[in-house]
C-alpha cells in the first residue's frame, strides 16, 4: 500500500534503480542542544526528485521530519535546501542526476534554522521589502496607479524583464560569500529587485531606494563572486542585476546619468465602442 503511493509520486516509473542514502540534518532549536544527522535509505526510481525522497521518508520512515514545500514544480520557491553542499530546489533536483549514493541535506545556510530543513526566510522578505519593490511615482497618486496603464516599449520592458522571474527562494543568498558574514548586507535578491524597479521606465523611486541599495551595506558589498547567478533556479541572474546597478551608480557618481524620462499614464480609452452584451466589471472589493 505504502509502496504504491511512493511510486505514484515518482512520476509513474515503477522500477527501483538503486537505493540512495539520504543524510538529513535534524535540528530543533527548541528541543535539541545541537544538530544531528539522520540517515534514511530511499529506493530511487527514474525521475524521483529529492522532494519525493523526503516524502518517502516522512510517510514510511520518520514522520517527524520537517521541511517546507508547496508547489512541487519550481514555481513557489519554498523547498530551497543545501543538497550535497549546493543550494538547490528539492523539487527541481532529481536524485539520479546527483550521481551519488548519498544525498546530504542541510537547511539553506546564511538563514536561521526554524527546524530540520526549514530556513527562516523572513530576513530575506524584510530586506526585499526595504528596497520598495513596487512602482513609485511622485506625479501620480498611488490611488490612481492601479487604474491607469503606462506606456512602455518592448525595449524598456526587456531591460528588467529577466529580473522579474525571481521566486524569492533564497538560494542566491545561501551562495553569496558576503551574506555569509555580513548580516546587514541586503544580498543578491533584494539588490536585483531594487535594480529591476530602478530601471523600470514607469518608476520614479530610485532616490527612495538608494539609502538601502547603494548604502554602506548595499550593492558595493558585492564583489562579483558570481555564485548567486549560478545557483538561481529561474535564470534571473542576480549578479548581472547588481553589476548593472553598480554601473548606473558609477555613472551617477560622475554626474553623467541622464534624467529618466518617465512613462506617461495612458489616457482612458474613449473612442472604442463597447460591444453589446459585455457584462459590467464586478464591484471593487478593496477601496
Amino acid at each position, binding site marked *: 500500500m505504502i509502496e504504491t503511493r511512493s511510486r505514484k509520486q515518482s512520476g509513474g516509473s515503477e522500477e527501483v534503480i538503486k537505493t540512495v542514502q539520504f543524510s538529513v540534518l535534524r535540528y530543533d532549536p527548541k528541543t535539541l542542544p545541537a544538530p544531528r544527522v539522520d540517515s534514511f535509505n530511499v529506493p530511487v526510481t527514474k525521475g524521483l526528485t529529492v522532494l519525493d525522497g523526503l516524502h518517502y521518508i516522512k510517510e514510511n520512515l520518520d514522520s517527524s521530519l520537517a521541511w517546507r514545500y508547496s508547489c512541487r514544480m519550481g514555481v513557489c520557491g519554498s523547498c530551497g535546501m543545501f543538497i550535497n553542499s549546493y543550494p538547490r530546489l528539492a523539487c527541481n533536483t532529481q536524485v539520479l542526476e546527483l550521481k551519488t549514493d548519498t544525498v546530504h541535506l542541510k537547511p539553506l545556510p546564511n538563514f536561521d534554522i526554524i527546524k530540520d530543513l526549514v530556513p527562516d526566510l523572513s530576513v530575506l522578505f524584510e530586506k526585499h521589502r526595504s528596497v520598495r519593490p513596487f512602482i513609485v511615482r511622485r506625479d501620480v497618486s498611488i490611488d490612481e496607479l492601479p487604474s491607469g496603464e503606462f506606456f512602455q516599449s518592448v525595449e524598456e520592458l526587456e531591460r528588467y524583464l529577466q529580473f522579474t522571474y525571481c521566486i524569492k527562494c533564497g538560494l542566491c543568498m545561501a551562495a553569496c560569500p558576503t551574506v555569509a*558574514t555580513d548580516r546587514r548586507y541586503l544580498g543578491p535578491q533584494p539588490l536585483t529587485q531594487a535594480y529591476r524597479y530602478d530601471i523600470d521606465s514607469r518608476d520614479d523611486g530610485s532616490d527612495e531606494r*538608494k539609502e538601502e541599495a*547603494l548604502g554602506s551595506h548595499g550593492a558595493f*558589498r558585492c564583489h562579483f563572486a558570481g555564485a548567486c547567478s549560478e545557483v538561481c533556479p529561474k535564470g534571473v541572474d542576480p549578479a548581472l542585476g547588481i553589476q548593472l546597478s553598480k554601473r548606473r*551608480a*558609477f555613472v*551617477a*557618481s560622475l554626474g553623467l546619468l541622464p534624467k529618466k524620462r518617465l512613462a506617461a499614464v495612458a489616457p482612458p480609452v474613449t473612442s472604442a465602442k463597447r460591444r453589446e452584451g459585455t457584462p459590467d466589471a464586478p464591484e471593487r472589493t478593496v477601496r
Partner: protein
Amino acid sequence: MRTRESTLWTWHLLAGAVILVLLGLHMFIMHLSGLGGSGEEDVLSYSSVMERSRALAFVIVYILLLGVALYHGLYGFRKIVFELTLSEGVERAVTVLIVLLGLALFVIGSYATITAYAM
C-alpha cells in the same frame, strides 16, 4: 542616485585604474627592465635610487601613486571590515582610524620624496 558609498566606490575603481598604469610602470622598472640585458645595474643601489629620486617625473609619479594606492588599499581594507557585521559605532571608528593612518603615511611618504628630491 548618489550616496556617500557610491562616491567612495567610484574613486576606489578609478584609483585602481590609475594604479594599474602607474604600478605597472613601477613594476616594469624594478623587475622587468633587467630583462633587456642591462641586468648588471642594481636598481636598488643607493646611487640608482637617488638618481630616480632627483628626477621630477619620478617625484610626481611617486606622490600620485602613494596617494591613490593608499586610498585604494585602505578603502579595500574597509570593505573587508565592513562585511563582518560590526556595529555602526565600530564601523565609524574603523573609518576614522583608516583615514588617520592613510593621512599619516601619505605625509611621511611625500615628505621623504620631496626631501630626497632636494638632496
